[in-house]
C-alpha cells in the first residue's frame, strides 16, 4: 500500500469566502471519483519510464535487440494482465482502451459468426461502449435483446437464459456497473446460457470489476473480457480484450494493417503503456484481498456517516452485491448538480441531467425503476487506493452540511416537511 504524501492545507480563497481549513492529513481537493479514472500508481510509473527513452524499440522489430527488449516487456505484461483474470498471456489483445475492446468483442464476434446467428443479448444498464455498439449492429441487421434489471440492478441467470435462442451468438453482460457498482452473478449467468445454447459466447465488460473483485475466466465460463488500465491505477490509452483460445473464439478485426496481435488488432504496440498496464494488473492482483477489505471499510464508514445524520437518503442498487469502493446514493429533494457545486473540494459525480448535454437523468438509474425526481438527486462516490479515513470523515461532514443547506433552499423539502406528497401535484414539465 503506497502512502500518499499529505500535509495540512487550506482551500484556495474563492469568491471572498473565508478559507476552509482541511484537517491535518487531508489534502484538498479530494478525489472520490475513482470509477471515472484513477491516478497512475507510482510503482506503475516507475516501471514504465525506461520504455520511453531507453527501451524504445518497436515490439514488432524482429532483427535487433531494441525490438527483442520491447517484445519481452510486452510479453511479460501480457502474462501480468492475463493473470489478473486467470487467463493466458497469449489470449490478450491490446487495444486503445476498453471502448475499443468492447467494440472489437461485439463487432468482431457479430461479423465472424454471422452465419451461425444474428442475435445478441445484453442489459439496459451496460456502458455506452456496449449499448452504442449494439445500436450500430442493430442497424446492420442484428437482433439485440436488452434485458431489464430488477430494482437492485441485477439480472438473474434464468432471465438471461430465457432470452437465449438457437440464433444467439453472444451474450454481453458487464461484471460490475460503472455507476452503481452492482456486481452481476456472472458465473451463474454464463452457466445458464451455455446450458441453453453451448455455442453462445459470453463477453463481459470487466473494466470496473478487474482488480477489485476476483475474476477467473475458466471458472466463470467466459469467452471474451474487456479491460482498461486507467481504471486500475495504470495509464490512459491502453486496454485489452481477452479472447479465449481453448476452445478457440474467433473475431473479425475492426482495424487492419500489419497483422499485429495475431491479426485481431493491427497497429504498433504502445510499449510503455502496456508495461504500465501489466504492472498495474500485478499490483492490483497482489493487493486485492487487503485492499478490498480496506475499501469496504471506508465505503461503510461513508455510508453510515451519511445515513446516520441525514434522513430521506436512498442507496441506488444492491448494497450487498456491489464493488467495495462504490456508493451511489440519492439525497431526496436536493438536485445533484447543486450538490456538486457545494462539494467543490470533493470530486464526485451525479446522475442528474444538468451535468451533461442530455436533459435526461442517468439511464442506469431509470433502468432500475428509480423515479426521475430521485435520479436527479443521486451522487456517485468512488473510493480508491489513495483515499484515507480522514478524507472520508471530511467528506461526510461536508456532504451533511451541504444537504442541510440545500434542503433549506428546496421547495420540495418544504412540502415534504408539511406532509405534502410531491407526486400529488400537477407539475408542468419543461
Amino acid at each position, binding site marked *: 500500500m503506497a502512502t500518499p504524501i499529505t500535509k495540512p492545507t487550506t482551500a484556495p480563497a474563492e469568491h471572498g469566502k473565508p478559507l476552509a481549513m482541511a484537517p491535518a492529513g487531508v489534502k484538498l481537493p479530494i478525489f472520490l471519483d475513482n470509477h471515472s479514472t484513477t491516478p497512475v500508481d507510482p510503482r506503475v510509473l516507475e516501471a514504465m519510464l525506461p520504455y520511453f527513452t531507453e527501451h524504445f524499440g518497436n515490439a514488432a522489430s524482429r532483427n535487433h535487440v531494441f525490438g527483442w527488449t520491447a517484445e519481452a516487456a510486452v510479453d511479460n505484461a501480457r502474462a501480468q494482465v492475463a493473470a489478473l483474470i486467470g487467463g493466458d498471456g497469449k489470449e490478450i489483445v491490446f487495444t486503445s482502451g476498453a471502448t475499443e475492446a468492447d467494440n472489437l468483442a461485439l463487432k468482431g464476434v457479430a461479423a465472424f459468426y454471422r452465419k451461425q446467428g444474428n442475435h445478441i443479448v445484453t442489459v439496459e444498464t451496460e456502458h455506452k461502449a456496449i449499448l452504442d455498439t449494439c445500436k450500430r449492429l442493430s442497424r446492420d441487421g442484428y437482433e439485440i435483446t436488452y434485458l431489464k434489471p430488477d430494482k437492485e440492478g441485477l439480472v438473474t441467470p434464468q432471465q438471461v437464459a430465457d432470452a437465449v435462442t438457437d440464433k444467439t451468438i453472444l451474450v454481453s453482460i458487464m461484471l460490475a456497473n460503472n455507476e452503481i457498482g452492482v456486481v452481476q452473478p456472472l458465473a451463474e449467468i454464463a452457466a445458464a446460457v451455455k446450458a441453453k445454447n453451448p455455442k453462445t459466447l459470453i463477453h463481459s465488460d470487466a473494466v470496473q470489476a478487474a482488480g477489485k473483485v476476483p475474476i477467473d475466466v475458466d471458472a466463470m465460463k467466459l469467452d471474451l473480457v474487456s479491460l482498461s488500465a486507467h481504471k486500475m491505477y495504470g495509464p490512459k490509452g491502453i486496454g485489452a480484450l481477452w479472447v479465449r483460445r481453448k476452445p478457440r473464439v474467433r473475431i473479425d478485426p475492426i482495424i487492419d494493417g500489419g497483422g499485429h496481435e495475431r491479426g485481431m488488432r493491427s497497429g504498433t504496440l504502445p510499449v510503455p503503456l502496456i508495461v504500465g498496464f501489466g504492472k498495474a494488473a500485478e499490483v492490483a492482483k497482489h493487493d486485492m484481498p487487503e485492499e478490498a477489505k480496506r475499501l469496504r471499510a471506508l465505503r461503510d464508514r461513508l455510508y453510515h456517516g451519511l445515513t446516520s445524520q441525514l434522513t430521506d437518503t436512498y442507496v441506488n442498487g444492491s448494497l450487498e452485491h456491489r464493488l467495495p469502493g462504490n456508493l451511489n446514493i440519492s439525497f431526496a429533494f436536493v438536485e445533484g448538480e447543486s450538490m456538486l457545486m457545494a462539494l467543490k473540494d470533493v470530486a464526485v459525480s451525479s446522475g442528474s441531467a444538468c451535468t451533461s448535454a442530455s436533459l435526461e437523468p442517468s439511464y442506469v438509474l431509470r433502468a432500475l425503476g428509480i*423515479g426521475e425526481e430521485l435520479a436527479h438527486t443521486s451522487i456517485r462516490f468512488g473510493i480508491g487506493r489513495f483515499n484515507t479515513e480522514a478524507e472520508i470523515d471530511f467528506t461526510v461532514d461536508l456532504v451533511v452540511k451541504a444537504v442541510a443547506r440545500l434542503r433549506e*433552499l428546496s421547495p420540495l423539502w418544504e412540502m415534504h416537511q408539511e406532509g405534502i406528497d410531491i407526486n400529488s401535484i400537477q*407539475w408542468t414539465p419543461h
Partner: protein
Amino acid sequence: MAYSDKVIQHYENPQNVGSFGKDEDDVGTGLVGAPACGDVMKLQIRVENGVIADAKFKTFGCGSAIASSSLATEMIKGMTLDQAAAIKNTQIVEELNLPPVKIHCSVLAEDAIKAAVDDYKKKQAARAQGEPT
C-alpha cells in the same frame, strides 16, 4: 463546467430565501418546473399598493437555477406587477452570464415571476367578486 462569478455569488449567498404564507391576501405564489426535470422554483411576492414590496424564493435545481431565482427576487422588488411581468429571461442570462445549456434556468425564473403575478391577480379578482358591493 465552469460557473460565472455571479452564479457562484448567488449560489453561495442566495438572496431572499424563504416563504410567505401562501394563503395571505397580499401574497402571490408561483410554482413552476417539475421534480422529474430536476428543476422546481417557488417564487412569492408580497404586494403593497400595486408594488412588489418583498419577494422570496425556494429552488430545487442546479446552481444556475438557484442563482436565476435569487436574482429574480432581487430584480422585482420595488417593481409594479406589470413591470415584473414584463421581465425577460434574456435579462437574467445576461446578468448571470449563463451558458446556452443553462438558458432554461432563466426561462423558469421568468415563468415563476409571471406565475406569482398571475396568482396574486387571481386572488385579488376572486376577493373583489366575493366582497359585497
